[in-house]
C-alpha cells in the first residue's frame, strides 16, 4: 500500500497486526489493548513498533510509554469524528512526541491541511487510486490564524 508521508507518496513499510496475529520480524503496530496486555513481550521486539489509538482511548495513560513507539496511528472511523485532532496536538505540543503520527480511516484530502496543522505527518488515504490528487491539498492555505504544530506562534505574533 502507498501512503503519503511528509508530503510524499511512499510505500508503506508497516503492518497493522490484529490482536490475535503472531508477532512478525518487521515493523508492526498493535492496538492499545494488546500493548497493555503484552507490553513486556512486545517491547523486546527489535524492529519498529507502533501503537494504534482511537478517539475514546485514555491518551494520558500511555504517555510514559511513548518512547517505545516510532509510529502512532490515529484512527478516524468517520472523518466527522474529530477527537484525534486533539490527540495529535497533545502528542506533539504537550508530550513532545517526535515520531511519525499517522491518520488512518476515513481520510479525504480535504482533511490533510488541518491534520498537518495538528501535527499528523503521514496519511493512509481512503482512495488509493487518486492518492496523487491529494498532494496539492497541503497548500490549500498559506497561513493559519492559530498556533499550529508547524508554526507554534499564532499569526497575531507575526503580522
Amino acid at each position, binding site marked *: 500500500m502507498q501512503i503519503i508521508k511528509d508530503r510524499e507518496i511512499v510505500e508503506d513499510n508497516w503492518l497493522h497486526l490484529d490482536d490475535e496475529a503472531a508477532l512478525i520480524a518487521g515493523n508492526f503496530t498493535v492496538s492499545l489493548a494488546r500493548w497493555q496486555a503484552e507490553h513486556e513481550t512486545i517491547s523486546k521486539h527489535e524492529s519498529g513498533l507502533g501503537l494504534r489509538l482511537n478517539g475514546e482511548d485514555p491518551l494520558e495513560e500511555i504517555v510514559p510509554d511513548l518512547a517505545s513507539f516510532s509510529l502512532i496511528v490515529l484512527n478516524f472511523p468517520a472523518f466527522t469524528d474529530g477527537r484525534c485532532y486533539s490527540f495529535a496536538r497533545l502528542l506533539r505540543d504537550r508530550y513532545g512526541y517526535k515520531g511519525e503520527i499517522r491518520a488512518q480511516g476515513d481520510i479525504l484530502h480535504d482533511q490533510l491541511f488541518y491534520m498537518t496543522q495538528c501535527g499528523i505527518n503521514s496519511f493512509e488515504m481512503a482512495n488509493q487510486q487518486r492518492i496523487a490528487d491529494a498532494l496539492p491539498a497541503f497548500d490549500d492555505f498559506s497561513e493559519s490564524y492559530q*498556533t499550529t504544530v508547524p508554526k507554534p506562534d499564532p499569526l*497575531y505574533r507575526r503580522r
Partner: protein
Amino acid sequence: MYQYDNYDQAMVDQRVAQYRDQTRRYLAGELTEEQFRPLRLMNGLYVQIHAPMLRVAVPYGLMSSKQVRKMADVSRRYDKGYIHFTTRTNFQLNWPALETVPDILAELASVQMHAIQSSGNCIRNTTSDQLAGVHAGEIEDPRPWCEIIRQWSTFHPEFAYLPRKFKIAVIGSEEDRAATQLHDIGLHLVKNHEGEVGFEVLVGGGLGRTPIVGQQIRPFLEKKDLLSYLEAILRVYNRLGRRDNKYKARIKITVREHGINHIRELVEAEWVQIREQLELDGKEIDRVKSHFIEPDYDATAAADDSFDKVLAEDDTFARWVKQNVIDHKVAGYKVAYISLKAPGVPPGDITSDQLDLVADLADEFSLGEIRASHNQNLLLSDVKQADLYALWLRLQAEGLATANINTLNDMICCPGLDFCGLANATSIPLAKEINERFDDLDYLYDLGDIKIKMSGCMNGCAHQSVGHIGILGVDKKGEEWYQFTVGGSSEADAEIGQRLGRAIPKDQVVETVVTLIDVFKELRHEDELFLATVRRVGVDPFKERVYADN
C-alpha cells in the same frame, strides 16, 4: 469596522479556490453526496426542499454599505432578488444554484465577506449586541473581542469536526440583546472589584429540543487569557462530547451529564497548560481595537431643534420614532431600527432594491455602516436627530418604516415547512395571520414589549422556547399542530418558557394568541409587561382560558 489585511484576504480567497475545487470534484463524481455534504456545509451551503440555501456570515452583525450593495447585487444576479436575515445575524440566499456558489463566494470575498463555518459541526459565526459601541450603559465595546474570536475560530484546525455545532456570543453591557445565556459559550465583559475589565464566561446554554440556560464556568477571566480559555473549553468538549447521538452532542448535554464542576476542573486543568502559549499581547489587542475607534461625532448635533418640531407636526413619524428609534450615547445622535417585519413579508426578509436603499441611507446618514440584530431587524446606529425625518421619508417610500420594533408583530420566525427540509409545520403563513390580526398599531403599543417566537420544528431555529410566547410546530399523523409555551426569555433574565398544555391545531393558533393577550390584559397591573405578568401570576390563568372549551 474591521478591515482585512493581506493575511485575512488571502485566507478567504484561498477558501473560495478550495471550495471551487470541491464543487468541481463533486459535480465530476469524484466526491459522493455524503463526502461533499460536510464540505459544502462548512461553506454554508444546505440543500433544502426547493433548492440549496447559502448562509453567509455577517460577523457580529456589522456590515458596510459596500458589503450591503454587494449583497443586493448577488441576490439579484444569483437568486430571486431578496435575502433573509437570521437570528444569528447571518443572511441566507434561498435559491442559489449549487454550481454558482463558488462564484457567489468569490463576489462576497471581494468585499471581505465569507460563508466560512456558517454551518457544520464547527465554531460558527460569533454574535454580539447590535448596540455595541453606541449604547450609553456599556462597560466595553465587545466588537474587537468578537473579531479576535472570529480570527481564532476561522479554520481552527483542531476544532473543525466537533461533536456538534458551537456558537459563541459576546456582550459588553448588562442588558443581553444577544441571547448569550443560550449559547454554547456566552461571554460578558464585566468589571471586577479592582475595576479591571475582563470576561465572565458561561458555558452550556442552548436551544433546540433540549433548551438549557448556560452556567457560569468562570466569574472573571483576564482579557489576555481569552483565547487560551476558549481553546481549553473547546478541547475538553472535542474529546468528551458525545458522538453517538447527535441530539446529545451539544456541549449543553456534556455539561449536564458531567456537571459544571467537573467540566470546570477539566477546563481549568487544560487551561493552565496552554495559557502562556496563547496569551494575547497588547499589540494585537490594540491592532484590532484600532478598527473600532469611536468616530468623530459632530458636537453640534444636539443643538438641532428641527427634530422636536417635526415630531410635533407629524404623528406617523412620531410613532415610528417612539417605537423604532432609541437614544445614542452621544447627544444629538439616535439609533434607528429598520423593521424587517412588515405585514405580509416573511420575518427577516429584505429585497435587493431595499438593500441598495439601506446602503445609500447608511452612506448619507449613518457613517456608512449597517447592523443586523438578533431579532432579525436592521439598524442604522449613528444618525443625527436632524436627519431622522429625511431618513424616515426614504424608508417609508420603500416599505421599510414599519413602526413595530419589540411589539407582538416583531416576531422571530423560522422559514418553516415552506422552505426548510427539517420542518414539520408551517410558520411564515401563521406569522402573517397573527400580524394581520394585530393590525391596530396603537393597540400593539399599549400591549408593550411582547416577544413571540415561532419555529416549525423541534430544532427551534426561532428560539421559541425562550419566547414570551413560544409556538412550536409539530407533526401529528401528517397534520400540523402547535405547542405553546409562555414566560420564556433570552435576555438577562433568561428562562425557558413553560408549556401551556397539549398542542393546538393550526386553525386555532391565532385565536390562542388572542386569548393569551386577552388574559394578559385582564390580569396586567397598569403598564406591566407581558413577561412580568406571566411570571407574577404563573401559567395557570392562561392555561385555564385557552383550554376552557375542551
